[in-house]
């Protein structure tokens, strides 16, 4: 950070945002070319430092003395902005390294985004920067903007410096940046810092949000990502930023793609865990607010920047038209806000101030002929009410509506409260002067009341998250060594069922008593030991779908039945799959029919180990009613996972079912999270199903599949 009163220690990325001197390498004298534009933008946007054009054989660019090489510049150069063609950028970067430049913003395109040749160029650049300790933004980016008057840096394509504000915007897409700048300009929204980071070969969005966390100029961080490489890193960083002292909200637009390394999975978990579904769940766990549109991004951002945080979700609505008031009420309730009853005192005040025809319950309808006096009185009354946490003022222009005066009284109202306020003046051109007044006073305005509600919900969600305790991961007591031993003896691919059961048993899952039997007699003997009807399940590395080859025999009562079933099974398999290697068959007790749940885990290429839960059968197959979390899973998260599936009530006695052992399920989720976190070789794991018993009887794993990566991946 620059040396200014109240500033803290300097940060490695300061040379990106607060360079004292900048050299632009590859400037050309021709206007309306990229190199020339970038130079001119820095020059004309009020940059407070010193600017050096590097342009061989040119005396000057825009009357600023030009140098042949960055090495020829006699002074120290903090930052280099490079716009040379991609094939010579490495020369430029080498010289920057020699010069002792601290940060490089590489605007040039023609790197990883164009293919393998470009990727090689990029790797080369990155290595030089790493070796010389230079921070690299880009390549293939639009540049960096810092509206802090200490810097006034516009090292970008944007022709005009955006207005100053407290919102930071980070984008992977250059094209989006120009659209966003235009959008913000139209709405009078300002930025603190604005970065297009392109191919993120050096500095990533994770580095940047860490920086912005500490930036005193920034209150809200907006992020646009197309590709997530280090999802876990983002989650862990975001968790630190969005909680604790100095917490700041992060709002993210992430378009659908992620980096996919793994093959398509054969398991349930794999096919359900489409990138986006996991991303959604995981990002929420990180405290990141994910939105789908630029509109929504800024709608929420301005609420969180301009207005104080709400203490709760209780919304008071003041409107001069019944219809919009009702619509706003519906929207608020649907989105998760409350519409509280007012205290007696408030009702009294409203009764006095408003005409008899007015509605003095929430939403307050001051009716169509209301002027500023009624709005003022109503607003003050509801803001004073202890049952109210935030307020929304709706206005529709009628012939006597004094729009500007009403806007002024909203402004006055906001100045005398610490509760957040939003407005919806519905009427386009007619109400523009009122909107201008609100905008100037930093009162968020939305064309539709629903948008205001949505923004307030996000603001509340952040506030609740910010104040919630960080998750605690208390490991459960497990035998990791035993599980490892089993896995060490297994090859890459799907483990045998008995091996899977062994692993689960080592991790404390409710696994029925079982034995891998190698003969009919062995099986009969063990069945007799169990003294209950048993199940026979063939074990063979070559049989993936046991049922297809009649490799599962159910409900075998007594040793003779077992022996007979064994012989029938093995005979049949020998006929239909003669080449299958038979290790034996698992014998275990029949598990009574009941409610099924599915527990799954997947090592996601972006987020690392993730865990999935859902009710089995139709709920998973048809309704896809599942939920995801990052592993390891805290007790609190496991509980919320179970409660968050839509079919949850079937576990608590809905439709005449018995209450299930829900805490047992939660514990299994935690154990699963621990298992995949502890063992890197596990790529996929499906427990499908686990039969859910009552709280007394407990749960039982009925089937499990575990897939392992090659042995050296641990």
């Amino acid at each position: 950070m620059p040396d200014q009163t109240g500033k803290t220690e300097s940060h490695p990325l300061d040379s990106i945002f607060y360079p004292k001197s900048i050299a632009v390498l590859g400037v050309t004298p021709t206007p309306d070319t990229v190199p020339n534009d970038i130079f001119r933008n820095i020059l004309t946007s009020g940059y407070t430092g010193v600017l050096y054009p590097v342009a061989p054989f040119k005396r000057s660019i825009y009357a600023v003395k030009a140098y042949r090489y960055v090495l020829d510049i006699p002074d120290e150069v903090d930052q280099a902005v490079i716009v040379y063609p991609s094939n010579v950028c490495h020369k430029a970067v080498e010289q920057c390294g020699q010069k002792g430049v601290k940060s490089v913003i590489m605007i040039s395109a023609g790197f990883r985004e164009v293919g393998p040749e470009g990727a090689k160029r990029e790797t080369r650049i990155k290595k030089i920067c790493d070796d010389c300790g230079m921070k690299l933004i880009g390549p293939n980016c639009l540049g960096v903007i810092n509206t802090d008057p200490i810097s006034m840096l516009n090292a970008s394509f944007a022709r005009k410096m955006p207005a100053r504000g407290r919102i930071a915007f980070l984008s992977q897409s250059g094209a989006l940046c120009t659209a966003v700048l235009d959008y913000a300009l139209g709405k009078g929204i300002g930025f603190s810092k604005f970065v297009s980071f392109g191919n993120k070969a050096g500095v990533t969005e994770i580095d940047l949000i860490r920086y912005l966390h500490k930036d005193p100029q920034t209150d809200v961080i907006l992020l646009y990502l197309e590709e997530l490489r280090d999802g876990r890193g983002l989650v862990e960083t975001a968790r630190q930023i969005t909680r604790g002292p100095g917490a700041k909200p992060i709002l993210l637009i992430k378009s659908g793609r992620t980096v996919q390394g793994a093959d398509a999975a054969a398991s349930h978990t794999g096919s359900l865990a489409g990138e986006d579904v996991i991303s959604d769940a995981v990002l929420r766990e990180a405290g990141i607010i994910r939105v789908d549109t630029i509109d929504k991004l800024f709608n929420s951002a301005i609420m969180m920047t301009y207005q104080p945080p709400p203490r709760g979700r209780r919304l008071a609505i003041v409107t001069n038209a019944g219809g919009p008031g009702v619509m706003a009420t519906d929207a608020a309730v649907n989105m998760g806000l409350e519409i509280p009853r007012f205290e007696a005192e408030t009702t009294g005040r409203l009764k006095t101030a408003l005409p008899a025809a007015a509605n003095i319950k929430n939403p307050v309808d001051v009716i169509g002929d209301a002027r500023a006096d009624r709005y003022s009185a109503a607003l003050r009354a509801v803001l004073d009410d202890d049952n109210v946490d935030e307020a929304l003022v709706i206005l529709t222009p009628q012939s006597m509506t004094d729009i500007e005066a009403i806007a002024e009284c909203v402004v006055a109202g906001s100045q005398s409260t610490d509760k957040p306020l939003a407005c919806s003046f519905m009427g386009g051109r007619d109400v523009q002067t009122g909107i201008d007044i609100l905008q100037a006073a930093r009162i968020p305005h939305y064309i539709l009341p629903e948008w205001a509600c949505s923004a307030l919900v996000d603001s509340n969600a952040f506030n609740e998250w910010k104040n919630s305790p960080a998750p605690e991961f208390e490991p459960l007591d497990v035998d990791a060594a035993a599980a490892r031993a089993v896995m060490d003896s297994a090859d890459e691919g799907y483990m045998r069922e008995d091996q899977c059961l062994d692993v689960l048993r080592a991790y404390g899952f409710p696994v029925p008593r079982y034995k891998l039997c190698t003969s009919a007699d062995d099986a009969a003997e063990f069945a007799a030991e169990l003294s209950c009807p048993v199940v026979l399940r063939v074990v063979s590395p070559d049989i993936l779908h046991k049922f297809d080859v009649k490799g599962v025999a159910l409900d075998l009562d007594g040793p003779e039945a077992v022996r007979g079933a064994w012989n029938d099974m093995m005979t049949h398999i020998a006929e239909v799959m003669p080449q299958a290697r038979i290790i034996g068959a698992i014998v275990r007790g029949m598990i009574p029919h009941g409610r099924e749940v599915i527990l799954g885990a997947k090592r996601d290429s972006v987020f690392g180990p993730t865990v999935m839960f859902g009710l089995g059968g139709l709920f998973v197959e048809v309704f896809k009613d599942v939920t995801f979390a990052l592993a390891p899973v805290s007790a609190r998260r496991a509980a919320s996972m179970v409660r968050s599936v839509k079919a949850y009530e079937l576990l608590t006695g809905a439709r005449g079912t018995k209450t299930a052992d829900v805490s047992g399920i939660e514990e299994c989720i935690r154990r699963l999270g621990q298992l995949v976190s502890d063992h890197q070789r596990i790529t996929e794991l499906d427990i499908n199903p686990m039969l859910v018993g009552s709280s007394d009887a407990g749960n039982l794993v009925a089937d499990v599949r575990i897939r392992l990566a090659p042995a050296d991946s641990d």
Partner: protein
Amino acid sequence: MATLEERVKAVTGKTLNIDPGEIQTEHSFTFDLGAESVQSVELVAMFEEEFGIEMDEDAALAVETIGSACEFIARVCAEQGVAVDTD
């Protein structure tokens, strides 16, 4: 007749408005001599004009330095039967 290299430097100097005396063989057109995008096209055309040859634009634009330009042009001249003094 001037050597191929002298001629390449002369044409480069004229096109980029640089004294040929300052141009060295290892210089990159963009990085050391400051050629802009459109000037690269102009350079290709001026080399073609100077030597009476036709160059494939993709290959020609991929040439980075004076030295490799000399090599490239020498090759094309040989292919197209144009005599040059390569020193």
